[in-house]
């Protein structure tokens, strides 16, 4: 099934197109029919757990992986048989991959030199690129004399200076510590906007994906599960896998009883989405959408007992249990309002409880 195309992307006007990519390594299937269209100037993220095929997908755009079936198109041209050095892609690697025997300037100039750009123009463009990543005075240094964050910026400058069709980023923040990573997230997004370059970003970190991306493709077992904007992905996950992978979520199994109502452990839950009466379904419900209220006022309100209270600083997580045995989690901002054993009413709207399609 071709979800990317199904979701209404026109086939023209894509910087990168992937059509039914299949890649096998012996008995394991790394890519199982991956189709995606990446729009010009878009920050597009491939998100998924390790082994889901995201890196293989990226590497087949770069040309390091030759798919067993399917096509890769860059700027409308089929590039399956084009070697990496003629694909006009810029790539940033997880561990920077700066040439240790060359200075920062020489690293950034490398791609221009390969393109036989004139000497004085190389000097000019390298200076511009280093200024862009805010390292104008570091040209004479060697990579090992730079911090991890600085090396990452040089790698970015080196990838951008040749003005490639598409920028490929393979977990570029993975080797940085948390504080620097948060800073680089903003920095990277700023750069990408400023340059306006089409970008494919690979990560297993949902927070990175949600904060930076224009659109995200969630991958699982060599397939694309869903392509959507960060907000749509979080609020309206299409599959159980997506719902479970992005953020915390209550996945309640039950039986559809018609009219959008699902019977979970004896609780009648009003939901959005449709399932034939009698069908076994999964209902997804974000913990932060569960409100602990005094009175019955929402579409769903159920009397429950607090079984655990987990203090998390900014937020408090309550594990709740209905009298019929259904457990779910609720998250609140701020102070601890209830103790374990307290009786509460848990309420949420029908819009917040979604029937997932592959249940």
């Amino acid at each position, binding site marked *: 099934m071709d979800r990317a195309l199904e979701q209404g992307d026109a086939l023209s006007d894509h910087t990168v197109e992937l059509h039914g990519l299949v890649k096998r390594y012996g008995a394991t299937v790394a890519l199982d029919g991956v189709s995606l269209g990446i729009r010009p100037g878009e920050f597009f993220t491939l998100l998924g757990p390790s082994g889901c095929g995201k890196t293989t997908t990226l590497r087949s755009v770069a040309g390091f992986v030759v798919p067993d079936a399917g096509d890769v198109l860059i700027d409308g041209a089929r590039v399956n048989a084009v070697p990496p*050095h003629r694909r006009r892609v810029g790539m940033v*690697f997880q561990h920077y991959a700066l040439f240790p025997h060359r200075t920062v300037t020489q690293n950034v100039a490398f*791609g221009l030199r*390969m393109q036989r750009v004139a000497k004085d123009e190389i000097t000019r463009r390298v200076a511009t690129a280093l200024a862009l990543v805010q390292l104008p005075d570091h040209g004479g240094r060697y990579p090992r004399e730079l911090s991890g964050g600085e090396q990452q910026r040089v790698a970015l400058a*080196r990838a951008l200076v040749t003005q490639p069709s598409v920028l490929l980023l393979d977990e570029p923040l993975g080797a940085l510590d948390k504080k620097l990573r948060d800073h680089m997230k903003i920095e990277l997004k700023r750069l990408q906007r400023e340059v306006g370059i089409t970008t494919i970003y690979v990560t297993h970190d949902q927070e990175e994906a949600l904060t930076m991306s224009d659109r995200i493709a969630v991958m699982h077992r060599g397939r694309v599960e869903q392509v959507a904007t960060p907000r749509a992905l979080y609020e309206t996950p299409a599959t159980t896998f997506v719902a479970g992978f992005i953020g915390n979520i209550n996945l309640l199994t039950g039986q559809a009883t018609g009219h959008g109502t699902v019977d979970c452990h004896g609780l009648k839950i009003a939901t959005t989405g449709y399932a034939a009466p009698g069908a076994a379904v999964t209902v997804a419900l974000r913990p932060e959408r569960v409100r602990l209220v005094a009175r019955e006022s929402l579409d769903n309100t159920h009397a429950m007992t607090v079984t655990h209270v987990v203090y998390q600083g900014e937020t408090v997580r309550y594990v709740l249990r209905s009298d019929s045995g259904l457990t779910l989690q609720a998250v609140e901002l701020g102070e601890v309002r209830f103790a374990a054993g307290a009786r509460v009413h848990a309420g949420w709207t029908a819009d917040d409880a979604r029937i997932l399609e592959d249940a």
Partner: protein
Amino acid sequence: MRLGAGLVLLGPYILLLALFFTAPLALMLAISVSRQSFGQMEWTVTFHHYARFLSDGFYLGVLWDTLVLGVIVTAIALLLGYPLAYHLARTRSRWKPLLIVCILSPLLVGIVIRCYGWMILLADRGLINATLVERGWIAKPLPLMYNTFGVAIALVHVFLPFMILSLTGVLKRIDPALLEASQTLGASRVRTFVEVTLPLSLPGILAGSLLTFSLAISSFVVPILLGGFKVQVLPMIVYEQVLSVFDWPFGAANAFVLLVISVALIAVYIKVTERALRGIV
């Protein structure tokens, strides 16, 4: 405390070196500046033996031949060894252990047996010449032995493992992402090799070449057996002076000239390569 622990760990080796390397070397230096008359050593300080060596065209010629042989052997070993080392560093084949054994195999055979093996192949009536003559492809045997060619081939054969292992260690440590980065920046595979792999493998080239060169110029048995005294190298002169002519001071002076020149060459080599190594080590 840390110094003490270091001494305990290094002690035995330092002692061994001092007793069996430094002391004999010092003794040899003393002998090389001494005088010998009627088999008796007179402990003087004279540079007579060095002057004799440096003013005699014959000895200078042998020295030159020795160094040329060293360069030839090193160059051939590097050219043959690099592709093998490259493959060994990259391969994930299950035959890799077998390949390593094959590479090390010259070291598993005794030096005399190895040389006789080459003789069987290279002699005038050896396997190669006999076959070629029998088929009528050549009229008379090719000169494969008792010349520099034969000596060089046998020396390359035995020193190749040192070259390959030195190179493999360095090539293995080159991050494959560097080669991919080079390619995404527009460099073909060949260009990537020249721009990235080759400069980054310089430490291995340096180590392997130094090892091969110093082993080659001090080799003795191989030049005798495959050179048949037609290829003269300095170690043979030293041997001759010490054990046949019994002129110990002159033999010692010869040995020291060889030592000083190879140390000097190695120093120059390191200096030249140092610039290219900036940023790597």
